[in-house]
């Protein structure tokens, strides 16, 4: 047939851990390329959080003097963590919606018809979200830095915040991917967007829990988004301390582990039902 026929023996197309890694990397590359080739989908998750940050700064700038408000150089310094979380949440929905679209239009079947590592399909998609989350975090930090969003933890803190942003992406991306795998519907994934928005507003993303009262304070305390935001915020306000770094990294990591477990179960369940 062709000159390569003889060398394409079956031994060369067997599955090995190295092949699974190669597949995951290739799928991650695809999901990243997809994101950057759809600026109309990607840019809003960058622009709107920045818009909210500047709006918040001009509207709530004076609230930093309220009793219970942490000591900050500006509202933007306080708000930076909320902006990062907001952007990363919405970016992760985009990645999971792309997975659901793959299921809807049959690209998922194309992957399943090949000897593709099943876990690699999920992790490849999530890797794209993680990279995007890291990029978004860096963009928000460097975009808000000149306007007073100081990071007390310095360069090491910025790196830790980028890692934290990536982990939040992984956690939220895995949860949203579970929805995608369960429903196979991009509408269902995008339908979670308002829910995330409500969760964000019922968290400490825009105000510290210390200034809240009543039910709102209780909800914010139970809301996992508050804990994700506060981990990042600790780096921004407290400096590069062991406690701040641990909160910024370990909270999203713990949520990511649980979310990955759920997503993997949904993947197995979908594969089993076919």
């Amino acid at each position, binding site marked *: *047939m*062709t*000159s*390569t*026929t003889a*060398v*394409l023996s*079956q031994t*060369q*197309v*067997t*599955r*090995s851990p190295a*092949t699974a890694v*190669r*597949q995951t990397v*290739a*799928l991650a590359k*695809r999901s990243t*390329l*997809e994101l950057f*080739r*759809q600026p109309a989908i990607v840019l809003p998750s960058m622009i709107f959080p920045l818009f909210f940050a500047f709006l918040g700064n001009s509207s709530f700038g004076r609230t930093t003097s309220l009793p219970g408000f942490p000591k900050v150089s500006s509202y933007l310094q306080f708000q930076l963590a909320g902006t990062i979380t907001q952007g990363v949440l919405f970016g992760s929905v985009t990645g999971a919606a792309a997975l659901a679209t793959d*299921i*809807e*239009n*049959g*690209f998922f*079947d*194309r*992957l*399943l*018809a*090949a*000897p*593709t590592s099943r876990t690699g399909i999920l992790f490849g998609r999530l890797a794209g979200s993680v990279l995007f989350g890291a990029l978004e975090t860096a963009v928000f930090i460097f975009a808000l830095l000149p306007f007073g969003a100081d990071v007390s933890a310095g360069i090491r803190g910025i790196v830790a915040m980028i890692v934290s942003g990536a982990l939040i992406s992984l956690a939220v991306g895995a949860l949203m991917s579970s929805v995608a795998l369960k429903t*196979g*519907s991009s509408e269902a994934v995008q339908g979670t967007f308002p829910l995330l928005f409500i969760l964000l507003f019922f968290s400490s993303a825009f105000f510290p829990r210390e200034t809240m009262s009543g039910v709102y304070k209780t909800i914010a305390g139970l809301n996992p988004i508050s804990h994700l935001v506060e981990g990042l915020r600790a780096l921004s306000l407290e400096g590069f301390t062991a406690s701040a770094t641990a909160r910024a990294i370990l909270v999203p990591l713990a949520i990511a582990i649980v979310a990955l477990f759920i997503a993997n179960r949904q993947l197995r369940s979908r594969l089993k039902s*076919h």
Partner: protein
Amino acid sequence: MTSSPIIAENLVRHFGDVQAVKGINLEIKAGEIFGFLGPNGAGKSTAVRMLTTLLRPTSGTARVAGYDVVKDADMVRRSIGVALQDAAIDPLMTGAELLALQAVLYGIPQSLMKKRSDELLERVGLTAAASRRVSTYSGGMRRRLDLALSLIHQPTVLFLDEPTTGLDPMSRLTLWEEVRRLNKEGTTVMLTTQYLEEADQLADRIAIIDHGKIVREGRPVDLKASVGAPTLIIKTHADQEERAKAVLETFGDLRPGAEGALGVGLRGGAAQVTEVVRKLDESGVHVQHLEINEPSLDDVFAEATGYRLEGSDNAPPAGDNGVEEPDKKKKSRRGRK
């Protein structure tokens, strides 16, 4: 590997209470082009999805390329090429990028990837378009790319699910040529189609599937010969149809016609046409249209199923057999990428 690369025994698939495939038996020999012919919703794609490991059979067994489709699914996947009707090609990627991704999925060494991709792009005539995003490709170009993707690992068995549906005649011919060329090179091909001409032109053997069951199987030439007599088709006024049927029945067995048409297999051959017309005229039947056809696969199909595949509204609607899977319903609503 056994001598027959595709063997299915009593393959059944249910979706809830609906039996999409009701016990299919198949044996496709090495080097054959086998056509699976049937209307939308007949169970063709469901059968192919089971044979390509994408769906688990509810019962029954199948071996493809010598491996059990359930127990050795991974080995089946490594041995076969699949171009599915509903498997989209990512429009945001270029042809070359998709081939590179496919090569990685099949574990093809880095050192061979570029060469293999270039060969396939040349083979399907897409070298010049390799660096363009798929969203700029025509339908024919996408199908050719799909074919190239399915060949990346040089499979010995190739599944093509409705490879030319929606293509213009020129693109269809180009794809047929490529399928023939692959077959000459030794690839066993199983294709599903709803086009009689495609089955007739390409397939060494065909199986007609209707409501999840194989109702006829054999070489197209033998199947057509089995119908025997040529078919006389007439059209008349609706209020004269009963009288016309009574006349036609005296010349042979009535055969299903397209909407508003009556058909009869002329026992005495085409020479009887003049006499039929005279008898119809004597019975007061006004003939609006008349044609005589040598036995075709459509006649075979009509005889086997009771309705015609082409130009008929009698065929069951898509999904009638319940074979549309939950995710596919969304696809049909949203359209393909």
